[in-house]
Structures are given as structure tokens and as C-alpha cells.
């Protein structure tokens, strides 16, 4: 008990003293994940909208694929992208491996199926009168889809928040594609894994507390949206 209590005290002291390394690690995590979720949103929201609104051959298969990709283990995503970005891989010449850009790419791949899936759910659950109303008022197909997005905006924000929750807490992609380089690609999750293995429990706990706070804020925001 003393060990846990002492570690918690040290962790809080690190946070209150704005420890430089803790701040750098938190900043790396947040900046990579924010960048990834923004990019994923640009791809996944229109993709989800098209899947929801269009009838096309293979639609069921596409939805099944999305569901499967949602549950894809992060280390598998890391492995696949590692293969693409490593020196022997097709994109090795760009030197992206072990950079924040590589981590962002992996997190985009993780987030797109989640955001797209929840977008499909939000648009499918939208009032079916929105589309004919927008069309009869003179909107083209694109404007009509944007109007549907506007009407289900809370569902779309929930989709993005759910995607962010997944990628901020993942460790596989960040470890395999970032390499856990101190001050460069070290994120909260990879730092927690490393520092715990080194016996630096208090440092890991400090980051764990920040991560928990972020997760709590994300969930509070999601609950707030669901109540609207």
C-alpha cells in the first residue's frame, strides 16, 4: 500500500510541477492523435455518408468489412504499416518510419472504420424526410448530404469522439511505428509501458492519470451529446 501511495504522491508532484518530460509526452500524444482524428474525419464522414445513402452492390459486405476493421488489433495495423514504411517496403525511401507522421498514419487507419461506422449509424438513423425535403427545396445531391450531416451533427461529433477515444489510448501503433523515441515519438501509452518496465512506476502513474483524465473528458463530452 505504501508503494502505491508513495507513487501516487510522486506522480501528482510531477504533474503539479509541470515536469518537462511529462508535458512533452502528453503533447506528443495529443498532437498526433488530434492530427490523426482530423484527417480520419475528412475521409470517414463522407465515406460513411455515401455508404449510408447510396445503394450499391456489395453494400452489406462493405458494412461487414467496416465492423471487422473496427475490431482490428492495433499491433496488426502497426505491423502492416511497418511493412509498408520500412526500408525494404514500397514506401521505405520516404524515411517515415519512427516519426510522428508514421504514428499518425497508423492512427488514421485505426480511426477511419470507427468514425465511418458511427457516421453510417447516424445517417441511417436520421429522419428519412430530410433528403426529399432538401431536394425539393432545390439542393443537389451533395448539398442534400451536407444538410443531413448538419441535422445529425451530434451523432457525427459522437463518431469523431469515439474514434479519438480509441486512438489516444492505443499502444500498438505508437510503439511499432513511432519507436518510442524520447521527446520525439514517445506518447503517454508507450511511455507508461516503458517506464513501468524500467521500474519508474511514479512517472508511469503520472501519465496514466493524464490519460485517464483525457478519457474521462472524452466520455463526459460523449454523454453530454447523447443527452441532447
Amino acid at each position, binding site marked *: 500500500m505504501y508503494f502505491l501511495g508513495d507513487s501516487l504522491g510522486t506522480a501528482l508532484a510531477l504533474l503539479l510541477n509541470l515536469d518537462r518530460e511529462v508535458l512533452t509526452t502528453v503533447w506528443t500524444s495529443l498532437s498526433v492523435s488530434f492530427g490523426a482524428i482530423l484527417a480520419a474525419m475528412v475521409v470517414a464522414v463522407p465515406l460513411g455518408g455515401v455508404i449510408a445513402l447510396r445503394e450499391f452492390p456489395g453494400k452489406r459486405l462493405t458494412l461487414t468489412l467496416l465492423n471487422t476493421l473496427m475490431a482490428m488489433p492495433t499491433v496488426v495495423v502497426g505491423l502492416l504499416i511497418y511493412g509498408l514504411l520500412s526500408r525494404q517496403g514500397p514506401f521505405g525511401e520516404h524515411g517515415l518510419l519512427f516519426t510522428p507522421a508514421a504514428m499518425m498514419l497508423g492512427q488514421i487507419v485505426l480511426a477511419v472504420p470507427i468514425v465511418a461506422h458511427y457516421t453510417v449509424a447516424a445517417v441511417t438513423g436520421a*429522419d428519412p*424526410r*430530410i433528403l*426529399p*425535403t*432538401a*431536394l*425539393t*427545396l*432545390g*439542393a*443537389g*445531391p451533395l*448539398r442534400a448530404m451536407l*444538410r443531413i450531416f*448538419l*441535422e445529425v451533427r451530434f451523432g457525427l461529433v459522437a463518431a469523431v469522439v469515439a474514434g479519438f477515444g480509441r486512438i489516444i489510448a492505443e499502444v500498438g501503433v505508437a510503439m511499432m511505428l513511432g519507436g518510442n523515441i524520447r521527446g520525439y515519438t514517445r506518447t503517454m501509452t508507450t511511455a507508461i509501458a516503458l517506464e513501468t518496465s524500467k521500474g519508474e512506476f511514479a512517472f508511469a502513474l503520472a501519465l496514466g492519470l493524464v490519460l485517464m483524465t483525457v478519457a474521462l473528458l472524452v466520455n463526459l463530452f460523449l454523454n453530454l451529446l447523447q443527452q441532447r
Partner: protein
Amino acid sequence: MTPLYELNRIEHRREGRTVLAIDRLELQPGHFYALTGANGAGKSTLLHLLALLERPSGGELRFDGQTLPGSNHHLCRLRREITLVHQAPFLLAGTVADNLAFGLKLRGLPRRERNRRTLWALQTVGLGDFGERRVGRLSGGEIQRVALARALALRPRVLLLDEPSTGLDESSAAAFEGLLAGLRDQGLSLVMASHDRALVQRLGAEEIRLAEGRILGHPLADSTSHRLAVSGSSLCLNPSKMPGR
């Protein structure tokens, strides 16, 4: 005069089932038509085709002498000549004025003209001071009237109405009839789906009877002899003359 709509050998299918089969139908501009028939007769489906929201599965539909264009862009341009007020209208999120502004913005109208038309349309349906009201706070009858105002503000060549008096109380329905009669007298092309044949006769509309997706009779010989003049309604509906397009 070029007919407003020409339908030749129209067949429309949904889920493999024929829901509409019309050998030939011509609708003239400036007329008031009423589609009547029981539930499932095909009234709403025909209105959707006339609103160009759906393409018929087979046959030829002409609007103003033109066949339906292949591209969505051109179809959208043609569709802007027509507005459909649905049976249970959907109001977009925001205020009443936002709803009226939506279609006007799509047509690129400047703010001043948008405001002018919004005020005129809301006054026409007796909701002149409702512009800033949130749509979530409207009653069923008010929603119906805002939807009509939203359509009128666009100054369409054709106004399509799907069971427009459904959900209205007695006084609102009477005022609504007065408004429709006013629009009819201004020469607006109107097509209304209704199961209420008495209403159709009171408004003097030319009746097109549908049953199981087919036309039974068109028009009724005596349909124009029962015109209605409603005035002094408690709702102050004011079918003032529609300004030029």
C-alpha cells in the same frame, strides 16, 4: 400551349412491385389538380415523380416539354421550378426564417430579397411574426403552415401538396382552404393529393382519381362548379398576390 407535365406509359416499381402505371396524362399550367384515392392508390408516388424526386422506372415524363435530363446537375435545376410540401413536413433545424432561407440561398438570392420573400411568405400563411421562432417549439398546424410558406417563398412554377390539411384543426383547415383558393385564383399551377373528395370539390380542383396505381377518371365534369371563398379567417391567412418570379 406546352403542357406542364406529360406522362406517357409511365410505370414505376418499388421492390419489384408495380406501384404506378399511367398510360397517358397531361397536366396544363395554371390549373389546380387533385389526386384522390384510398391509401396506397399511388397519390404520393405520383407526386414524388411530378416533383422529380424519383425517376420513373419506365416510360416518359416530360416537364415543360423537356424530358428528364440524365445529369443530376440539370435535374436539380429543373427541380427548382417545382416544390413539394410533404404530408408530414420536415422542418430543418434552426429557426422558421432559417427554413425559408435554405432554398432561397441555394438559388443565390441576396439577403435583402431573401428577407422580403420570407416576410411575405410568412404573412401569407398567417405567421408573420414567427421568423425567429425555433422549429422545435411549433405546433403541428404551425409546422404545416411554415412548410407551405417555405415552398411559397421559392415562387415555384408548380406547387405540389401531399394531404395538406392533415393534422390541422377545423379552423386551421378552413383557413388553409382559403389560402389554397387564393393561390388557385392567382393562377399558380397546383397539384394536391387528398383523400377528401369534398375538399377537392369545394376548391374546384380537377380530380384525378387513382386506384391501385392507375388513373380511374380525369377530370370530373362538375368539379369546377363548387368554388370556395373563405375570408375573415381567425388565423388571418392572407393569400396576397404572389409577387413576380
